[in-house]
């Protein structure tokens, strides 16, 4: 039996966007909301990148050139991290591509709660406003802004920042958290309930699986962050002593609560990326993903284990040896399902006819560079080694490899893959290739030397450093400027595509693109699958 969609009987069905600003602002359409998220992420990425370029400019040479009050450098570090995580990666991967593609991929006309979807987006805008506000209010004595790092540990974030900045950060996190929790509820209900007839769970595209698991992590992990930052708020303003030992409190309580959220958070950022990579690999090798069930349950395992490894971020705080031993073992086990995925992607490419168009370049780049980042994570999982490397640039290199060279590459893979579908225009392959190679080379120049700096002992989150670290810092900064040029190439490529308006067919990629969005026009109609397709 086919399943159909409807608006209220007797009311005017909205078969197109409302005219004027209300069309997007009041939207209950998953594609328009996805566009809102992607545009927002793009804008936020400019702010986040500006902050990082400023930091690399400072670190270009020893000595303080720009941040004569080094507290401001810490403010930039904090804002850079929060913006990239909450206002670039998550909105792009989950809010942007998730909203755009999940309903189409499961053959549904929209999300389960279209109005709630819109709230999730506007909450994020409100959250970003609060974060930007934090930069302009007093923080630590003598400066503005929250210079705590994105991890906002007390007592630096309580007694150390008497001004309102950290309160703005806390409330920003509350709203971003609410945005994500509501969005996650929406995705889970949609995926569980609105699949086309015949699409069993084990027939869902891997990207949909990745969003389902990500959403489950969000629902379970974010409320704990909410509790932690609420405790921070009352400690700061209402005299509570959750984290102040002089009142019987414990600073480590915050770290436990934060990382109980914080570790699933990194899987929240990478799982949708895994979904995109699986989709693009299958398309451009012209064969289905190797080992579908293995891929599904690898993601489930990663999500599950991700909840019980949080204290590997806390190896230097004085945990009991046996406790550390447990967390080492648990953290190392995540390498197994992750390895299954990497080998399966390679297995998919094996014997396939590989089409090296732009999305596939980003994808192959991801598989290689994410693996590099992953193995440095395995190094850090060992508490003994981490004792030395904690809070050094080795950690910075690790997470930038998995995020800036992992998640970001997956975002670009998804962007180029789905750009024709979303806009109806073809991008220029030449510009896409230039963008990829320039970025690939420059981000490696940027981040690879940071491994050396970390092993040599350079601490993170410092505006200045001893002369001995000068060489690799100089190289790293050059990489940063080059990658900014890569970003310029990206923007040029987008402008060129919108200017040239080369029409994109419904499916530009060939028979390898098997998910349902490729059966629709480019761009798709305002409402699709009002009668659901039957899946065999």
């Amino acid at each position, binding site marked *: 039996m086919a399943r159909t969609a409807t608006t209220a009987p007797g009311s005017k069905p909205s078969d197109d966007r409302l005219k004027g600003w209300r069309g997007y602002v009041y939207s209950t359409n998953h594609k328009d909301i996805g566009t809102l998220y992607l545009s927002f992420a793009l804008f936020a990425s400019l702010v986040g990148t500006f902050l990082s370029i400023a930091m690399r400019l400072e670190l270009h040479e020893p000595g303080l050139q720009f941040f004569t009050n080094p507290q401001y450098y810490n403010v930039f570090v904090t804002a850079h991290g929060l913006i990239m995580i909450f206002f670039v990666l998550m909105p792009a991967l989950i809010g942007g591509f998730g909203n755009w593609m999940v309903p189409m991929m499961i053959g549904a006309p929209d999300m389960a709660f279209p109005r709630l979807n819109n709230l999730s987006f506007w*909450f994020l805008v409100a959250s970003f406003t609060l974060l930007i506000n934090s930069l302009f209010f007093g923080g630590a004595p003598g400066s503005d802004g929250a210079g705590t790092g994105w991890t906002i540990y007390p007592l630096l974030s309580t007694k150390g920042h008497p001004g309102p900045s950290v309160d703005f950060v806390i409330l920003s996190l509350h709203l971003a958290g609410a945005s994500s929790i509501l969005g996650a509820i929406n995705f889970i209900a949609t995926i569980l309930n609105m699949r086309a007839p015949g699409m069993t769970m084990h027939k869902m595209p891997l990207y949909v699986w990745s969003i389902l698991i990500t959403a489950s992590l969000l629902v379970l992990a974010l409320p704990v962050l909410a509790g932690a930052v609420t405790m921070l708020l009352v400690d700061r303003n209402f005299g509570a002593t959750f984290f102040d030992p002089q*009142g019987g409190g414990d600073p480590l309580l915050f770290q436990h609560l934060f990382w109980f959220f914080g570790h699933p958070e990194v899987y929240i950022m990478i799982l949708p990326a895994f979904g995109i990579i699986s989709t693009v690999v299958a398309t451009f090798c012209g064969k289905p993903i190797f080992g579908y069930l293995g891929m599904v349950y690898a993601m489930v395992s990663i999500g599950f284990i991700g909840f019980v490894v949080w204290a590997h971020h806390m190896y230097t705080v004085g945990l009991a040896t046996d406790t550390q031993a447990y967390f080492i073992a648990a953290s190392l086990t995540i390498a197994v399902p992750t390895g299954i995925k990497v080998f399966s992607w390679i297995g998919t490419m094996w014997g396939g006819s590989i089409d090296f168009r732009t999305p596939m370049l980003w994808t192959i780049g991801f598989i290689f560079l994410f693996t590099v980042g992953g193995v440095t994570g395995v190094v850090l999982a060992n508490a003994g080694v981490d004792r030395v490397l904690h809070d050094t640039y080795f950690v910075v290199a690790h997470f930038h490899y998995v995020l800036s060279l992992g998640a970001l590459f997956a975002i670009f893979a998804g962007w180029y893959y789905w750009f024709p579908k979303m806009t109806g225009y073809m991008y220029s392959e030449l510009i896409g290739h230039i963008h990829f190679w320039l970025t690939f080379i420059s981000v490696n120049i940027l981040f690879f030397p940071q491994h050396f700096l970390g092993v040599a002992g350079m601490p993170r989150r410092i505006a200045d450093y001893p002369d001995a670290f000068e060489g690799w810092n100089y190289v790293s900064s050059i990489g940063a400027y080059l990658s900014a040029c890569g970003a310029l190439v990206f923007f040029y490529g987008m402008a060129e595509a919108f200017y040239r308006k080369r029409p994109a067919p419904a499916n530009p990629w060939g028979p390898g693109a098997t998910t349902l969005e490729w059966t629709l026009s480019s761009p798709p109609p305002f409402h699709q699958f009002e009668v659901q397709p039957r899946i*065999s």
Partner: protein
Amino acid sequence: MTTKAPDMAEAEPERPVFQLVEPSPWPVRGALSALLLAAGLIIWIYGLLWPPWMVFFVGVFGVAATMIGWWREVIQEAENHEHTPLTRLSLHYGMILFLGSETMFFVAWFWAFFNTALFPADSIQVVRDHVIGGQWPPQGIQMESPWGLPLLMTVILLTSAAAVTWADARLLKNNRWGLKAGLICAISLGIIFTVIQAHEFMGASFNYSGNIFGAVFFMATGFHGAHVIIGSIFLGVCLLRAFLGQFRPNEHLGLTFASWYWHFVDVVWLFLFAFVYVWGT
């Protein structure tokens, strides 16, 4: 579904299964109100404007107006027969997931409680051990007996939960008098619980600030109390709708969800009672 070819099956006009929601102003209004509420809180705390509480209360008003406007819209859609069985199933999932997130929120507060209560003499926590005297409850903290008012509060909430369940059962048999009576009972007991809780708060020998016991106790039970108030309002709206003749025996999601919420609040209290009140003293 059996003999027709797939494309033929899709061509026949079908009973609508999904609800496509019309564009709505409430999300953006809600987010803007939340922004004003948040900024207003900071303005109030730091006295950045005059009067300091103005922006905050504008935000509160906006959030309340959004909740009323939005949920009124949902109720209208439901009463207008726009909710298909699939919509209702989605709403069930949504409410369960929401309660899951609320559970995890309370996990954070219980974690804070157990962090000190289980390890009051942890050797690494030198200053804390000295301040609390290596014991739980900390030295100098006088807790009342859990078998007095707290036990009464437990009985009140359990009875209240039973009343809601009874009301739901009456509705299933289309007994609207029973529905209203049960709801009135449940709400009254919820209000009584809140009043007793407030009395307990005001009469506590320990302060909220300056000590970990006060912090954990008042924040955990305080957030619970806030949820009791929210649940009472939710049940109150159900009572109003019952008087308006809404809710059918086979379709009454609002009541079902209010009932689930109320049971959730009850279970959280049982954990609070067992661990904070009984075990913790």
